[in-house]
């Protein structure tokens, strides 16, 4: 007879933890979820808000929001995508309120001409040295920053990014293209014609 080995709580999937938390209201299950995602959420908040104090408060608020809305999570997307979408939207709202700026995406800023619809390869960003990438990303409008983070950090599909930001797939494709163009422009402003590749 094979012995039945009890599953460790840390081995539960996100869905199992959510179901058990909703059934038992035992915070132990939520603790595991928190520990699984807190690092990523905190990192996104720091990158978006560029302020550690605000990132701490934001992380706390985001997890409370997640906790209060757990029953509404429908598993149409993965739990991580859901948590990250709350994170990005929270940070964008916070920046909007703080700076009182409705200008969130490159096309709002208007620096990239609408005629330049030249598709840039991913290597424009993926081959940048890390410290240079950091400086370029810091100078992007928050919406562009979020969209590039969703694509290159979280590996989200265009459809998922669209759902997070409430935009159509074609609008997202266009915004990714413009964000890449703007990144290249910023790179050239800072580093001149230094080659991007390491």
């Amino acid at each position, binding site marked *: 007879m094979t012995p039945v080995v009890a599953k460790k709580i840390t081995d539960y999937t996100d869905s199992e933890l959510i179901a058990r938390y909703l059934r038992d209201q035992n915070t132990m299950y939520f603790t595991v979820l928190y*520990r699984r995602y807190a690092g*990523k959420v*905190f*990192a996104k908040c*720091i990158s978006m808000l560029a302020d550690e104090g605000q990132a701490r408060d934001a992380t706390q608020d985001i997890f409370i929001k997640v906790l209060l809305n757990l029953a509404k999570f429908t598993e149409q997307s993965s739990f991580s995508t859901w948590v990250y979408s709350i994170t990005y939207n929270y940070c964008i709202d916070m920046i909007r309120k703080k700076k009182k700026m409705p200008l969130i995406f490159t096309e709002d800023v208007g620096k990239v001409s609408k005629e330049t619809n030249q598709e840039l390869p991913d290597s424009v960003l993926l081959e940048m040295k890390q410290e240079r990438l950091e400086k370029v990303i810091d100078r992007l409008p928050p919406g562009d920053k979020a969209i590039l983070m969703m694509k290159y950090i979280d590996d989200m599909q265009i459809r998922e990014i669209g759902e997070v930001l409430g935009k159509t797939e074609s609008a997202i494709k266009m915004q990714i293209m413009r964000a890449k163009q703007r990144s290249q422009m910023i790179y050239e402003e800072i580093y001149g014609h230094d080659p991007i590749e390491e």
Partner: protein
Amino acid sequence: MKNNFQEWQSDFERVPPEIEDRVLQQARTFSAFGKVVEVFVPNALGAVALMIGGEAPTRPVTHGPGAHLDDEVPLWRIPPGRDL
């Protein structure tokens, strides 16, 4: 393998421990509040219903003290010769 974006992100993933304390403290508070609401609100509503002349919703007591009171007397407890 991580790309340069993911490497950049991983530099910030160390969460200050006090955030966990604050979040989980609030989670415990919500959980306790939820349990209190679950226990007392139906009774409070029942009391209000009685006060305004209605009938309080009844729920069979399935466990705890008094759980046996509503049960029918089992046949084996009835002395011989006595009717139900």
